[in-house]
Structures are given as structure tokens and as C-alpha cells.
């Protein structure tokens, strides 16, 4: 074993021993680098794999589940939907614009790799408080990066999240989801087959970007040590949306013309990952000529070529006969294409210096994946949850809200309002003429349509709904119950547009997995997600794990984020959104039980205290609510709809008011716990008075409780006995919150 080199590359001593066992000899430098990148946490999921198996992944519409580049769902009419979510947290902390931009580029490649045309992006974002200049710099840079890349590459960003919390100050969370459409029969998988076939590298030249990025950037925590940060600097990657746009068009044309056998994007671990993965999935081997790889700068060592994470590259496996047609297509789109590999029967990944030259590396292709270590890391609930027996309990005691005056209530409510259009107003969210419900509502609603992917003529316009949701406050109180609530909220958001939730992807942002409490949070979150997804019949079709989210030794609050895909059978104009209509009745569908534990009000309003247990989720009731709500929306029995999520009834009512410019008067909300408390399975609907009886009856039949809260209209926000606030003031607070704080230098 060559000294401590393996440790510097992030491999443990045991891992180094396994490599020797696999090879029957000591690895050389290049081989060690290849194992190091492939066996990193980022690529191998070594800490999370044992837990992820507990997620339900099967369902009637699932064509491709987790494990491929993206999940694929049958949407009917011969159309399939590909969907995937990823994090780009650590790169965004160092260079927010490029970190976010390259995150967008990467997730888009995962989608068109499957043969799908990318049609929508979502960007759940979490930053440190914007009162701090550095956090503002990170947040504005990330939003500009998503805007700069997403708009230019020609994929609309139709939704996301924007949240602030002190645990993200040194470690923002930049998650990006992409969704694409494909004709079902164009589905291709990332595998090589056919001995003698060629591996063609498409797209950008290869430079020193992100070398060691997988092991250093993605898996190392940030410190205050400037030298440590400086050493990571050369690894920053710059995105080129123009290259990616041409790559999308060229790839889709290659697939349409049936010119490729398999295709894979280059992401983490670059060529090493793409060549070994396609080979091992196809049960074959591959020879790679490092000298055939076009370089951006001279003098890259073979290990640099094999691990570079230069952006905007794809690896296509083609037959030799297809080569000239492939080159023609690429030339038209001005996409560079070079044969860099050949499929062999040996099962080995060999790196060569010239086709007949020296063998620089020779390893079993599959060993880079299948033999990657699996860790059973220790888990321990936090001390506050351990009672005398050492058993996990819900911990904490509910804290009654402090008494407050009407003025304080108004003040608190105003401070909880923030229009996220500061972010999404910078994103093209309309391209492809698909966007029926734009960002700003509970979920985005799009036509199921894309250039080259249309339903047969005469069939009704069908739709897909998308929502991303996370809630670190709930998960900090109870990661298992909190994750259940997140899944429930996401499904409910989708149902607000009339859609039926059919699939879910997740992005699991956690702290350091070497901390037993973090692994416990992770495991609990997985169980919560599994319970909710099983209960609601929503399969998990893909995901991504991001560990080591910590700054200055403190782990972030557990932040699982889910993206839910819903389907609508028939789109009609006039989909209700979070809005009130003058003189309509405001009804609450769902139970009245709420909790202040983990609520936004408790977290953000001074004077309030944390503690307690989250409100219980009744999965059966929730399923019935989803079905009822989608039906009411699709039958257009409601004028406005908004689920009650963070900030409780108070914020939900106020959001409906400011978005529609219509006030309300409601009663029967007796205290702050009811006004700001949070609980699942609750939706506000604004209903023409003539429909109230019908809706109440339908809800009764479905076993969903209803409560008439009051009436919409006027220019004040009135909760009898608690709140009386002018609409203009609420509008100004909502619209101005983010622009004001972000205009500070």
C-alpha cells in the first residue's frame, strides 16, 4: 500500500485493503484516484444505501425507479415523464452563481440522458438570514445563477422554495429538480452493450475543473481556515448554458434517429463514472484512450482526465456503423464529438495511452460501483429525546403562546409574509407555452406537452403538477413525523391544482453522517417518508443524498426535501389559485388540530418559545382529502384554493388576500395557537355561496371535516378578536419584504 496517499484521497485503510484484494495487487496512482472518486460518499451513497432500501419504489405507472439517471413515469397518451432532483450545496457556498448554474446544468443532463426533453426546473433554496451581507451575496448569486443558466439553456423554472434559517449561514442548500417529457418508446438507459461498439464523448473540452471535487468539494466540510478554502478554489466549475443547449438538441436528435445504444451524462467522477457505469450496467468492459479526450488546456495527467468534472459533457455508446451519422448530427449542432472508448468483452475498465499504447489502469468495471463499501454508521437520538429507559420519545413540553395584543398579532403576521417573486420573477417560467399555473401558487401546473412530444391529436389537454417541499423546523422537532408532514404537504399542494400525486423524488440534505445523531435523523426521515408514501400510494422514483452540510462544526437541521409529480386528466381554463373572490365564503377543509411545535411563528417571532410535538397526520383522512380536493377543483366548484402550511391559518388567509387584492372577515379563531399553529391535511377554499352546501355535503360523504370561517371581501384582514389589518399594509409587507432586504448593500 503506498503510504497515506489513499487517505489523502479520502479512502479509509479498509477501503484500500479491499482495492488490493479486488486487483490482486497494489493499485497505481490513477487506479487509486478512480476508486477514490467512485467510492466517495457523493458517488457511492455508502452511508445512506442501507437506509434508502426502505423506501417504497413501485407503483403502477413507474417505468424506471431509483438507480438510473432519473425516474420515469407513464403519463398516458404514449408520453412518459422523467424526473430527478439533486443538490449543489457545497459548490454554491464558494461561488454562488456558478455553483447554482452548474447544479442546473447537471440536473438537466440527467433528464435528457433518459431521452426526455427537459421542460421544467424547480429550485428549493435555503440560505442564512438575509440580514447578513454574506448571506445576501450567496442568495442573490444563487438566484442569478439559476436564472442565468436556466433561462439561457431554455428550460423554464416553474417553482421552488425560498427559505431562510440560521443553520444555513455557512452552508446554503441549493437543490434543483428537473422534469422532462419523452415519447415512451424513446426511453434509453445508461448502458453499454455490443462488443466493438464505440464510446463517443460529446460536448465540452476537458479541463482541470472539479478535479478531486467529488472527494474534496462534495464531501469535505467548510472551515474558517482560509488556506483550506484556497486549496479548493481551482476546482470551481463554470457553467456554459449555450454548450448545454446545443448538447440537448444534438442528443435528442441522436436518440430520435436511433443512433445510440446507450447514453450517460458526465457528472461527479467524470469519465471514470460514465465509462465504468455504462460498462458495468451492460455487463461488458471498456477501453478508454486518455489521449483521445479533447483537452481545454495542455498537460493534464491521466488521473486528471479521468476524474475531471468539466461540465456539459455526455458519453454516447454507438455502433461503429452509426459513427458518421453521429458526427453529422453533432457537427450541425456545433457539438464536439470524439471516440474515446471501445466496448470490450472483458468486463474490465482499462485506461490506455493511445489505442495500442501503455495500459495505465486496469480494473474490473463493476468493482467501482458494486464493490463500493457500505457503511452501517452508528445512530443515536439526541439526548433531549432520551427518557429514563433510553427510548426515543417525543420530548419537550408544549408551550402555551404568550398573550399578545392585536397590534402584536398584526406585527407578527406582517413579518411572516414574503412574496418569493423576488426570485421567480427572474426565471423564465413560461417557455414552451405550457405554464397554466405559474410560480406563486401551491404547485405549478403545466401542459403535458413538449416540442416533439405531443399527445395524439384530438385527445384532451392533460397536465402535470409539480411541487417541492421541505420543512427543517418540523424535522428538527421530529425528523420522522416531520418528514411525513412534508410528503403530505407536497401531495396536498399538487392536489390544489386538481392533480393526483403519482410519484415523488427526494433530496436529503443532512449534516455529518459520522455524527450518530445525524444518522439517526436520516434514518428517521427515511422511515417517515416511507410511511407517508406507502400510506398515500406515492412511489419514490429517485433521490439524492447530500451529507456534510455543516458549518463551523454544527450540523444543519435535518432538511429532507421532496418533489411531487401529479397528473391532471383534463385541463380547463380557470384553474383556481390561492385567491379570494369578493363575497365568497371561506371554508376550511380538514381537521382543526394544530401545533405550535416547529412552527414558523415560534421560530421567527421574538417572544415565542419552542417545544412540543407536531400535529398528528392521519394518512387515511389525508388520502380522502386529496381526492375530494382534486375533484372540487376540477369541477370548478371552488374559486380559490390554498393549503394551510407554514405560518398556519393566519399566513394562508393573508396570502390569499394579498394575491387577489381582496380582504376577509373570519371568526371562530380563538387564539394565537389556532392562528399560527401548523397541522396537516388543511386547505382553505374560497367558494361561491351557492356551492357551500354541496361542498359541505361532499366533504361529509368523504369524511373530511369542514368549517365555515367567514366571508371574503373588503379591504381589511379581520380575524374577530385577534386581528384587524389593512389590506394595503399587508400587500406592502408581502411585496416589499424581499426586495427591501436585498436592496441593502
Amino acid at each position: 500500500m503506498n503510504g497515506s496517499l489513499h487517505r489523502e484521497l479520502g479512502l479509509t485503510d479498509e477501503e484500500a485493503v479491499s482495492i488490493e484484494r479486488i486487483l490482486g495487487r497494489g493499485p497505481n496512482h490513477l487506479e487509486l484516484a478512480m476508486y477514490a472518486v467512485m467510492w466517495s460518499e457523493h458517488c457511492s451513497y455508502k452511508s445512506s444505501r442501507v437506509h434508502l432500501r426502505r423506501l417504497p419504489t413501485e407503483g403502477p405507472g413507474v417505468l424506471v425507479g431509483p438507480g438510473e439517471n432519473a425516474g420515469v413515469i407513464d403519463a398516458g397518451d404514449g408520453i412518459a415523464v422523467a424526473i430527478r432532483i439533486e443538490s449543489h450545496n457545497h459548490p454554491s457556498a464558494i461561488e454562488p452563481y456558478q455553483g447554482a448554474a452548474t447544479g442546473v446544468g447537471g440536473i438537466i443532463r440527467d433528464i435528457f440522458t433518459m431521452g426526455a426533453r427537459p421542460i421544467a426546473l424547480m429550485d428549493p433554496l435555503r440560505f442564512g438570514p438575509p440580514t447578513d451581507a454574506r448571506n445576501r451575496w450567496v442568495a442573490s448569486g444563487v438566484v442569478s445563477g439559476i436564472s442565468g443558466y436556466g433561462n439561457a439553456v431554455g428550460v423554464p423554472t416553474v417553482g421552488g422554495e425560498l427559505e431562510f434559517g440560521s443553520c444555513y449561514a455557512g452552508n446554503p442548500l441549493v437543490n434543483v429538480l428537473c422534469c422532462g417529457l419523452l415519447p415512451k418508446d424513446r426511453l434509453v438507459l445508461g448502458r453499454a452493450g455490443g462488443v466493438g461498439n464505440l464510446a463517443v464523448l460529446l460536448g465540452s473540452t476537458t479541463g482541470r475543473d472539479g478535479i478531486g471535487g467529488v472527494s474534496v468539494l462534495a464531501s469535505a466540510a467548510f472551515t474558517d481556515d482560509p488556506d483550506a478554502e484556497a486549496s479548493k478554489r481551482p476546482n470551481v466549475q463554470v457553467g456554459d448554458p449555450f454548450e448545454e443547449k446545443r448538447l440537448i438538441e444534438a442528443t435528442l436528435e441522436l436518440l430520435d434517429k436511433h443512433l445510440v445504444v446507450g447514453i450517460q451524462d458526465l457528472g461527479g467522477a467524470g469519465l471514470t463514472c460514465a465509462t465504468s457505469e455504462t460498462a458495468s450496467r451492460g455487463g461488458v468492459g471498456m477501453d478508454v484512450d486518455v489521449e483521445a479526450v479533447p483537452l481545454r488546456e495542455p498537460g493534464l495527467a491521466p488521473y486528471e482526465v479521468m476524474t475531471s468534472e468539466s461540465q456539459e459533457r455526455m458519453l454516447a455508446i454507438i455502433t461503429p456503423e452509426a459513427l458518421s451519422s453521429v458526427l453529422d448530427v453533432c457537427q450541425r449542432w456545433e457539438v464536439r464529438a470524439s471516440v474515446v472508448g471501445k466496448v470490450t468483452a472483458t468486463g474490465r475498465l482499462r485506461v490506455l495511452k493511445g489505442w495500442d499504447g501503455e495500459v495505465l489502469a486496469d480494473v474490473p468495471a463493476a468493482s467501482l460501483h458494486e464493490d463500493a463499501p457500505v457503511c452501517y454508521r452508528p445512530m443515536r437520538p439526541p439526548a433531549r429525546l432520551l427518557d429514563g429507559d433510553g427510548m426515543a420519545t417525543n420530548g419537550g413540553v408544549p408551550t402555551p403562546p404568550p398573550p399578545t395584543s392585536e397590534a402584536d398579532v398584526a406585527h407578527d403576521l406582517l413579518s411572516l409574509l414574503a412574496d418569493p417573486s423576488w426570485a421567480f420573477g427572474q426565471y423564465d417560467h413560461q417557455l414552451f407555452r405550457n405554464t397554466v399555473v405559474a410560480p406563486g401558487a401551491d404547485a405549478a401546473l403545466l401542459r403535458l406537452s413538449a416540442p416533439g412530444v405531443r399527445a395524439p391529436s384530438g385527445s384532451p389537454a392533460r397536465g402535470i403538477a409539480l411541487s417541492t417541499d421541505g420543512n427543517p423546523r418540523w424535522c428538527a422537532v421530529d425528523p420522522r413525523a416531520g418528514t411525513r408532514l412534508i410528503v403530505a404537504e407536497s401531495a396536498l399542494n399538487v392536489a390544489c391544482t386538481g392533480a393526483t400525486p403519482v410519484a415523488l423524488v427526494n433530496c436529503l440534505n443532512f449534516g455529518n453522517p459520522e455524527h450518530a445523531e445525524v444518522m439517526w435523523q436520516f434514518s428517521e426521515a427515511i422511515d417517515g417518508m416511507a410511511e407517508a408514501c406507502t400510506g398515500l400510494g406515492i412511489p419514490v422514483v429517485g433521490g439524492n443524498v447530500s451529507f456534510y452540510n455543516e458549518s463551523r462544526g454544527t450540523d444543519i437541521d435535518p432538511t429532507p426535501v421532496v418533489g411531487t409529480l401529479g397528473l391532471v386528466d383534463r385541463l380547463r381554463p380557470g384553474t383556481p389559485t390561492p385567491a379570494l373572490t369578493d363575497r365568497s365564503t371561506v371554508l376550511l377543509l380538514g381537521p382543526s388540530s394544530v401545533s405550535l411545535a416547529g412552527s414558523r411563528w415560534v421560530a421567527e417571532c421574538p417572544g415565542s418559545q419552542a417545544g412540543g410535538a407536531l400535529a398528528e397526520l392521519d394518512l387515511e383522512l389525508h388520502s380522502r382529502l386529496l381526492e375530494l380536493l382534486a375533484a372540487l377543483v376540477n369541477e370548478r366548484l371552488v374559486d380559490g384554493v390554498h393549503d394551510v402550511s407554514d405560518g398556519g391559518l393566519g399566513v394562508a388567509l393573508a396570502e390569499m388576500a394579498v394575491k387577489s387584492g381582496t380582504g376577509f372577515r373570519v371568526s371562530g379563531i380563538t387564539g394565537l395557537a389556532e392562528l399560527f399553529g401548523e397541522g396537516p391535511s388543511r386547505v382553505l377554499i374560497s367558494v361561491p355561496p351557492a356551492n357551500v352546501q354541496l361542498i359541505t355535503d361532499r366533504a361529509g360523504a368523504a369524511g373530511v371535516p369542514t368549517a365555515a370561517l367567514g366571508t371574503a371581501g373588503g379591504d381589511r384582514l379581520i380575524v374577530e378578536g385577534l386581528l384587524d389589518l389593512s389590506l394595503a399594509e399587508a400587500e406592502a409587507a408581502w411585496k416589499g419584504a424581499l426586495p427591501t432586504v436585498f436592496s441593502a448593500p
Partner: protein
Amino acid sequence: MALVAVRVGVVVFPGTNCEHDVAEALVELGAEAQLVWHGSASLDALDAVVLPGGFAHGDYLRPGAIARFSPVMAGVREYAAGGGPVVGICNGFQVLTEAHLLPGALQKNKGLTFLCRMTELEVTSDRSALTAGVELGRRLLVPVNHFEGNYTAGPATLRRLEDEGRVVLRYVDNPNGSVHDIAGICNEGGNVVGLMPHPERASHELLGSTDGLVLLRALLAWAGARLEPAGRG
């Protein structure tokens, strides 16, 4: 109604991304649309040409700066000189100004951010291929989607544009800082038009507005009127 469908060429540069949207909206209005690759030089067989939105050549350097040297632009110049209707939408407008087929320039938005939102427009001239026959003063809801949409021109140019009735569309609530609230202008002949808003995005009931159809229909009518009664010559 013309008996033959109007044939519209939709120009595609590498990086263009609204070509399918424009083509689809025109086809829904009964036109024939064909995509024209930027490397082709001849536009002879077409009844109208649209330069759609997007990021030609990544918008690197300046929007439209590289695209204006594409072979197709020689064809567009010739086609426009012959009176053929040419409409540049968003990035297409930027290309037309860079190519000096329309005066002025489009600078970064006043707020220094990309803007994607609905805007209200007022039709202020009916002497262009895109607004002929549309009632002056008519208000239209059409979205914008751009970073560089802040129209700028020197005082002499502005005076000419105003005096000659070549400001065809103005923002009611100026989102980007354009001088004189200019959202769209035309050349002297009225056959070359550039505008920042996207009419093709306001072209279907499901999309929240159909006002863009007013403009697209006007274009097809203008193009149709130039056809020989017996069809194409």
C-alpha cells in the same frame, strides 16, 4: 381569408429557444410554419419571417452580437429590403438592432435583473406588419422575458421614430426602463418590426391571455395581402 396558408419561416440560431412556441402559435392560426436554420441564406419561398426569442450564441458578448453575422442574416436583409415582413421577438429584436435593420439598442434592464412577467401594452401605431388593422390605443396583455430589454436610442433617432409613427407598442407600466416606454418599433416601411414582449406566450386560453393573437393575426393578414390573388408568383 387567404386561400393558401401563409408560409412563415422561423429562424433558428444555435441557442434560440422560442422557435417551437412561435411556430405552434402560428400553426394554430392556420399558417404554415417552417424552421429555418441560421446557416441557410435564402428566404425566397417565405411569406413572412420571424426571428424568435432565446439566447442566440448564448447571448455571449451581447445579445445578437454574434448572430448578426450568421449567413441567414444576409437573407433577412435582402428579404426585408424587398418589403417582406420580418418580425423580431425579444432576442430576435436584439438581433435586428445589432444588424442595424432597426435603430437603437437594447441595454440591461434598469433593475439589473432578468424579468419574466405579464405586461400591459398599448398599441401606438398601426403602420407596422404586426399592428396593421389593430385599433390604436388598444391594450394588450403580453408577457416579457428578458434581461436586456431596456430600449435606448439617441435623441435624433427617437424623434424620427416618434414623428414617423414607428413606435408601435408601449408599456403601460414600464418594467425595464426603456426610453419613451418603448416596447416595439418598426422600420420606415413598417415591414420590419421588433418587440421585446412575447405574443406567442399569450396565445392560448390555458396561458392566461390570448392577446398575443391580435398581433400574430395582424402579421398573417399583412403577409397574406402581399400574396398574388392566384397564390404565390
